[in-house]
């Protein structure tokens, strides 16, 4: 029972990073200068993200629901100790979610308001990605202190530091990289294609650099990602192969194989997340008093059973409808309405 739930949490997290992540990334990409291509780039992003926009973000809600139903102590602890970063993330999600829709559906498409929307969309996307990374990093730092009484130790120390920030930047780079790789295949326009390819290259370099930064920053941490990592051959293999896959990725890019390029980029994310997962699971939340594991913090059996039923039956609705959505938009002819 618990294993099924862990699977759903992991799968939702992965899908959120892949799908929601490319949404966030699209916003970050729009922050880059584009010399006359801004308008075309905006159109491509509207068209590519619009239909899947809402669906991409429900993975996050799914994780929240699974946590508070199946693992209520973990949920409550995180909501208390990481109150500030969650709040920051929410502000970002609210702004970017609404601004993206407003930009498209504003009845008057005038330059000034469009510019404001685009900047807000970009900045809030970057902001949310950073905080998402900070939250993920804070889970496993072992700094969450549910018993602390002073404000700093209880609500700021858990997420404050160079290491969470480094992870935040790394996550933002992953998102932007995913988005640029994805967007290359969403346009027929050659200059724009070139533009997205160059963005992908930039974020590729940044990814490797910030990946190193994450490891370096973790040296200041007590359990320390790097030390755990070196002792774990599977994690090493995952990260090394993720890095090596860049070679394959650029080969596919130059051969213009859109689907293969996307598959490789997704594979890299799977490997990175998988590497992180094998290091920590099932204890993905570490407090000063030890881990809050999925197995020892699960809700009573009847609650888990109903949750699993809901998830399985729900999947029977969700996956076919998602597949239909993708069929209609991603495989259909690329003519505009």
């Amino acid at each position: 029972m618990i294993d099924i739930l862990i699977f759903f949490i992991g799968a939702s997290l992965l899908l959120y990073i892949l799908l929601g992540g490319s949404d966030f990334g699209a916003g970050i990409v729009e922050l880059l200068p584009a010399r006359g291509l801004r308008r075309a780039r905006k159109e491509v992003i509207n068209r590519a993200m619009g239909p899947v926009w809402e669906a991409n973000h429900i993975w996050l809600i799914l994780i929240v629901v699974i946590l508070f139903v199946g693992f209520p102590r973990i949920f409550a602890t995180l909501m208390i100790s990481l109150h500030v970063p969650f709040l920051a993330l929410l502000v970002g999600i609210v702004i970017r979610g609404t601004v993206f829709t407003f930009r498209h559906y504003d009845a008057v498409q005038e330059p000034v308001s469009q510019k404001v929307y685009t900047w807000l969309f970009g900045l809030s996307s970057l902001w949310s990605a950073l905080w998402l990374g900070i939250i993920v990093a804070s889970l496993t730092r072992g700094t969450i202190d549910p018993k602390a009484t002073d404000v700093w130790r209880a609500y700021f120390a858990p997420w404050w530091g160079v290491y969470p920030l480094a992870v935040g930047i790394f996550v933002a780079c992953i998102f932007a990289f995913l988005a640029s790789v994805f967007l290359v295949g969403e346009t027929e326009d050659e200059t724009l294609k070139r533009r997205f390819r160059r963005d992908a290259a930039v974020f590729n370099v940044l990814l490797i650099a910030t990946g190193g930064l994450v490891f370096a920053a973790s040296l200041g941490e007590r359990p320390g990602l790097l030390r755990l990592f070196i002792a774990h051959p599977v994690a090493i293999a995952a990260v090394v192969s993720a890095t090596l896959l860049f070679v394959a990725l650029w080969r596919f890019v130059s051969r213009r194989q859109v689907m293969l390029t996307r598959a490789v980029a997704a594979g890299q994310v799977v490997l990175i997340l998988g590497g992180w997962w094998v290091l920590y699971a099932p204890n993905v939340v570490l407090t000063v008093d030890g881990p809050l594991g999925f197995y020892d913090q699960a809700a009573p059996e009847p609650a888990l059973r109903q949750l699993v039923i809901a998830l399985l039956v729900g999947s029977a609705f969700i996956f076919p409808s998602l597949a239909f959505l993708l069929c209609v938009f991603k495989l259909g002819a690329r003519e505009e309405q």
Partner: protein
Amino acid sequence: MDDLTAARATMGFSLGFHIIFAVIGMTMPFLMSAAHYLHLKRGDAVYLELTRMWMKGVAIFFAVGAVSGTVLSFELGLLWPGFMEHAGPIIGMPFSWEGTAFFVEAVAIGLFLYGWKRMKPWVHWVTGLMVGVSGFASGIFVVAANSWMNAPQGFEWADGVARNIDPVAAMFNRAWPHQAIHMQLAALQAVGFAVAGVHAFLYLRGRAPELNLKALRIAMVFGASAAILQPVSGHFAGERIAELQPAKLAAIEGHFETRTHAPLTLGGIPDVETRSTKWGLELPGALSLLAHRDPAAEVIGLDRFPREDWPPVLIVHLAFQLMVALGVWMAVLGGFFFWYRRKANFPRRFLWALVFATPLGMIAVEAGWIVTELGRQPWIIYDVMRTADAVTPVPGMVYHFVLFLALYLGLAAVTAWLFVRQVRITQRKFEGL
């Protein structure tokens, strides 16, 4: 403002904000689908324009509803971790179903908004309808979680821990039917009247008369039907509350003293100090009759409850009076609508009445939620857990409140501005129709 007050204010404000967009997001698609259906059936271009116009409204309001709903799912934990830690497993079931329904809704809205040329017309129509159906379903599910707070069941509470959890019993709690029916009717009613009011106004101003009249008719069929059914569901709800939460009923009615032949007080100001409701119009025996179907029945008053377990009587009573007054007025307008509809001619005076009724449904929805939520206080889970015991230990909640107040007020302002722009532009475009 202390932390508990700030947390409650944040929650109240977030819910009050979300509910407007949620209500629009789950019922507006039905109006849109009705127009779309008429277009496909009759090939009338005006209905197509109407569909597209309403679709844009749905897109904007849905986006705000979706993000404010996401915020709420976090806020349950950010503000009330003590509540979620215990209640999460018990009432998780409706939340999981709500999540599923919302997922389908999000997929359907993507298909409908962007799929005009990518699907066969009737398949496309079905996707639009699915937005409404799944939205409506998610509304029904999420109300189950709230109604459980009013009528908690499906667990045993001992030493501050819930045992023998039965999520199925919790989901099918005894307050669910009346709350869900009342809420969903209210949603149809509020949206029907709001949309009809806007189109009545544009019609009276001489803008695109055919389009606006057709729009008004569709909207009012929903709004008027719901408004006429709503008093029945309200009465049903009242009977259930009398049984499940007598303290809430007593606060609603400003009924301090337990007695037989209890009168129904219309209006009036309850005074907690003197334990009496002044300046109200009393209908002898009517409260006993409404609550227990017997004018001689005993109705429990606030005197049966310790003072610290009283809800805020004044606000609950006034909010309830407001809701009922607005509901009665809308039911009257609904009756007139069907009357004039048969005569195929709407007098201008009636249309002006609709214009002034534009916000009434939404105000009634807010007032109704104030009754439900404040009427349950000081409990977060009725008779089990106090709100004060569920609040987060995080200090400085007032900053959280101010932040979200500013964010949501800004969002509301932008949405309103966009809405006005939208109406102006589309009306200018379809002037000729």
